[in-house]
Structure formats: C-alpha cells, structure tokens
C-alpha cells in the first residue's frame, strides 16, 4: 500500500495511506500508522478532503461499510483492492487447484455478504493477478489487474554465484499453512538426508527491512507452493536477482503478460525442483538474471504506478 503511495508521489499525485493492520513485517514507508478507530474519527474530514478512496483487503473506513454509500453520494471515486485471502473461497479455489489452502480466508458466506455490501457502492476492483480475479469478477462492474509493486530499480541485484557449491535456500512463511511450508520442509529434509549440499534458512518474525537484507544472501528463494500464483516475497526476490521457486498454476500461465521466470513447483514437484537448483548453479544464475529483468519490466513501481493512474482515471471517469 505504501509503495503505491510512494509511486503516486513520484508522478505528482498527492495521496495518503493509512495502515490499520500491523505485523512484525513493519511496513512503514509512506504509510500512516493508524487503527480502525482513528479512521472512524477522521472519516467526515476525509470524505471532504480526498477525491478518490482506494480501499484494501475488503475493508473500508467505518464498520459494516457504512461509509461507502456516503462517499458515493458525495461523488467520491472509489476502488477496492482485493489481495486474495480476503476473497478466496474454497468452492472456487478447489475448482482449478487441489492444493489451494483457504482456511485463513473468512467463511464463504461472509465473503459473499461483504462483497455484496461493497459492490452496492463500489463498481471497480483491483486484483494482483488472474488467480484472484474469479473470486471477485461476478460482483464488480470492472476488475482491473495491477501487478504487485516494488521499488525494483532501487535494489541492486545480487545474483547467485555460479561458484557456490553450498547454496543457501531461503523460505519466509508469513503464514506457513498458506505457503505450503510443511511440504517445502519435507522436501528440504529429504534432500538433506540424501546428502545434497546446501544450507536452508527459514525466515520468520523479522521486519521486512531486515528480511530484505537476509534475502540478499540467498541463492534460491522458495515462495508459496499451494496458491497457484506468486506473492510479494517472489517479487522482492526476483528484484534482487534470485531464482524463485513457487507454484504457478498451469491454467494461469498464459494469463500473465509473459510467463514469470519462476521455477514452478507444487507439493508434488518441490523436491525435484529444489534438487535441480541445488545441483545446477548455472541455472540459479540464469534464472536469477531473468527474474530481475521480469521484475523490472512488470513490477517496478514506475511501471505499476502508470497502470494505477490509468485505473484511477477510469474510476473517476465512470462517475461522470
């Protein structure tokens, strides 16, 4: 969220971001620390002051979405950004993906109820890719796909060394059940027992700033292998020139502007995928280089902000 605000600032658009969800990740750049009651307290003034409201994660400023109708009547442009776990129902998830984990999403009827309330006032949604798209498409007039943004060009790539015979594998599960950590670590365990030479580090309870420093040392980064698409960790890692292992659902591969250079592996293939990368340092380097190029092309803040600005223009235009 803060990264989008930063990007908008860079193209001369004033925006303010408020974060009410606080975790050990400690995202703080371009974001005001707040809680839901702070937002309730400033709502009336915010309604007057801001021209467009970009909500995230299926939440708004007042309980029970009481703000949305008021904002609409006030002629304010609005867009809801869904990130996945806020809308991922098992019914849809399981249709195309037997590995999908949805227990950290609200119950399906609650998701449906929320989406009905939101879309009574908001016509436009943003999702990060076509994995999230089908969950919200039936509800909104228009759903825009906006890739995850990262300051790719501000990060110096640190490609894996082809000379490194004991590669460092890193996995950073914010939610181990969602990421498939059990399967990943089972594969790691097996590889270790079979005598392959590598190091493994699991990153948890670390601020994002600190974690980014650690990722720099990685030779391979393992993202999420259940969901069927990739997340922030993959984008950060690709930006650093790291080869990333994650699961890209077969039916979604053609939906990306080009196939991400992510080594696709679900729980059935994770062992093989990791073994391949451990044994072939030249592959790590090659994929790392491709990853950086891909991240620059599709995830850099300047690229994403332009798309976001276009979405805002469409949303604002639709009010006329």
């Amino acid at each position: 969220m803060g990264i989008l605000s930063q990007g908008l600032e860079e193209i001369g658009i004033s925006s303010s971001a408020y974060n009410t969800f606080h975790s050990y990740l400690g995202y703080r750049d371009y974001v005001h620390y707040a809680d839901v009651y702070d937002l309730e307290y400033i709502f009336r003034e915010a309604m007057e002051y801001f021209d467009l409201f970009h909500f995230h994660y299926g939440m708004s400023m007042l309980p029970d979405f009481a703000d949305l109708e008021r904002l609409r009547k006030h002629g304010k442009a609005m867009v809801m950004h869904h990130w996945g776990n806020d809308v991922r129902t098992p019914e849809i998830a399981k249709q195309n993906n037997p590995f999908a984990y949805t227990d950290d999403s609200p119950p399906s009827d609650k998701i449906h109820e929320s989406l009905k309330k939101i879309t009574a006032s908001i016509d436009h949604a943003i999702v990060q890719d076509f994995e999230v798209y089908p969950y919200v498409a039936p509800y909104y007039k228009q759903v825009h796909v906006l890739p995850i943004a990262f300051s790719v060009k501000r990060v110096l790539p640190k490609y894996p060394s082809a000379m490194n015979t004991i590669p460092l594998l890193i996995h950073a599960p914010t939610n181990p059940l969602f990421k498939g950590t059990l399967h990943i670590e089972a594969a790691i365990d097996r590889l270790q027992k079979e005598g392959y030479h590598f190091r493994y580090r699991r990153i948890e309870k670390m601020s994002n700033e600190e974690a980014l420093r650690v990722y720099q040392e990685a030779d391979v980064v393992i993202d999420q292998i259940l969901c069927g698409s990739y997340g922030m960790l993959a984008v950060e890692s690709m930006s650093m020139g790291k080869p990333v292992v994650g699961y890209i659902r077969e039916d979604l591969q053609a939906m990306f502007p080009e196939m991400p250079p992510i080594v696709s592996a679900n729980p059935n293939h994770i062992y093989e995928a990791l073994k391949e990368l451990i044994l072939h340092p030249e592959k790590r380097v090659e994929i790392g280089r491709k990853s950086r190029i891909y991240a620059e092309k599709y995830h850099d803040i300047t690229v994403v902000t332009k798309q976001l600005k276009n979405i805002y223009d469409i949303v604002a235009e639709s009010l006329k």
Partner: protein
Amino acid sequence: MAYFQGETKGLNNYLFHCSFLRSLTGNEVQVWSKDDLRPYLLYLHQARVVDAFFGGIVFEAERSVDGSTLSSKSLGFGKPPTVDSWKETCRELFRRGQNLAAVVELSKEIPFGKMIDIWIALPYPDVTQHAFGIIDDTLLHFRQDHKDRKLALKWWIQQVATEWQALSKEVIGHRARFCGFVWSKSSLAPNDEQLVTDINGYLHELGYHTLWMQNYGTVKGHEGKRLGFDIVLTRPTYLGTKNRGIEWVETASSYVKAFEHGLILWAGGIDSPTLMIELLNLGCQRFAEAFQLFELPVKSLKQMYEKEDPMYVYVYAYTKKAYRPIPNPTSSIEK
C-alpha cells in the same frame, strides 16, 4: 473502579477542545478572539455574564497556515511539518489578542474564585518527515532518527513554556493556569510508545500534567499509566450508525470507569442529528462525575448562544450537573 475526577489532582472538570490555525479540510484559518471564547468560558444570557462555564481549554493546532500537518488528526491531510510550522503554532497560540492570549485576558472576567485550566496539545512529529529543520545547530530527520522526534518535542515544549511565562507576567490579575500538555494521537506506533514515555517523564520534571486523548478500542488504550500519562480521556467513536450507536458509548463508559479514565464527548458522528443530546442524556445518568472534554465543531457553541439555541443551556446545565435527560430530542448542532 471509578471514573477519573479532576478534583483528585486539583484540576477543573469540563474542558472544551479548541482547534486553531488551518482546519483539516479547508483553507480558512481559525482564530479565537475574546468574543469567540466568551460564551465558552462564561455562561451568558442576553450578553450578561451569569456564571463561569467550562473549566478549561485544550488548544490544538490542526494544520499550519501553509497546510502542513500539525495534529495527529491531520496526518495525511497535508505535507509533513517543518520546524517553521511548529514555530508558527507557538507564535499564533500566544499572539496577543487571540487564542491563548485571549483566554488569559478573558480569565479576568470569570467570577471570583474560579480559574481556567489551559492544556496544550503537542504537535505530532510525523515519521514521514525527511527533513524537519534545524534546531540547536542540528538538522532533524524524523524518518531516519526517532531520537530527533524527542529533541523536537522538547524544544517545542520549552518554547511554549517560555512564551507562557512571558504572557502570564504580562497580564496582571489573570486567572488562567497552565496545567499541561496533551498527546492527541490515539493509536501508538511502536516507536511512539518510547517517545511518549520519555516526553511524559520530561514534562513531569518540568511540573506539568500529561493527558492522552484516545479512542475507545485502541489497542494500548488501557496502558496510559504505564506510559506515564496522568490522565487518559477516552473518546467513544459514536457515529450514529449500526455498531457505533449510543450503546457503543455505554460500553465505552464501563471501560472508562474500569480503567479510571475520563471521557471525550465527541460530536463528530455522521448520522444522528440528536447525537449531542443523546450523549448528554446518557452522560448525566452514567458518567456525570467523570472528567470530560467536549469536542464540538469549531465555534458551534458560540453559534448556539447567538441563535439562542437551547443546546447552549443544556450543555451549561450538564457541566453544572443540573441537566436532566430530554426525551425525543432534536438538536441543531451543525456539522
């Protein structure tokens, strides 16, 4: 379990919140003259003084004239502040003939034996600020170094204390007393916690009271004493909507009592035109003895007085514990 009562610390009850400088949403600059303040500090009837009214004032600058954010409420409503905007806050607060200086002048008119309590809200050192400015030959960066936030606050407190001493000596026979400083950011970021603890300690060394204005439900809301606040005032965010109806205030008042806080009667809701009367109706029955701060739209009470709105009388009666609940209320509080 008891509500916090100002008498226990020798403080006047019933404060009113006084926003000054530029408002959050507009370009107008709020200045409080003696005439603006008179209906708050004195209960008037047909322009004649009947009684003292509110016991104290909390002054808080929302934004600087150039639109920089000053109060925590204004975060996101403008650019981050600089040392110049903080200087401007202090200068305008004490500018003769207005705001705090007007209160001090006016205090001479209040009935004998009464005092007016002055509270001043600290500006919020916004962590998104890259370059705050130079203080004591040091360039302060709130974003890079949290120690700089403390340095800036201490510097500002010293400016205010110095200005107060000068003003206090200048106005012979005034009956205003400067009680302390207010931290008005409700939610506390991890780096705010250490900051408020340190600043509260510093203020205590200087002999000031410290007061925290917070929203009911905020995570660390019950830890005010640990953080060094003398007084915590809790604001139920009564919006007049589902989940934030008058029951929310009732529940909040139980919490307030349990933790020995006071209450903020905030008339900022969105749906209920009778919100203020509903608050008074509830308050006189549930938390009449609690330390309370009225947070009303700017100068609205003055307008009520001028329009002879009975609400003016109701609020006065409430502060004298003479108010009785009004059934089926109507209100003319303008938002």
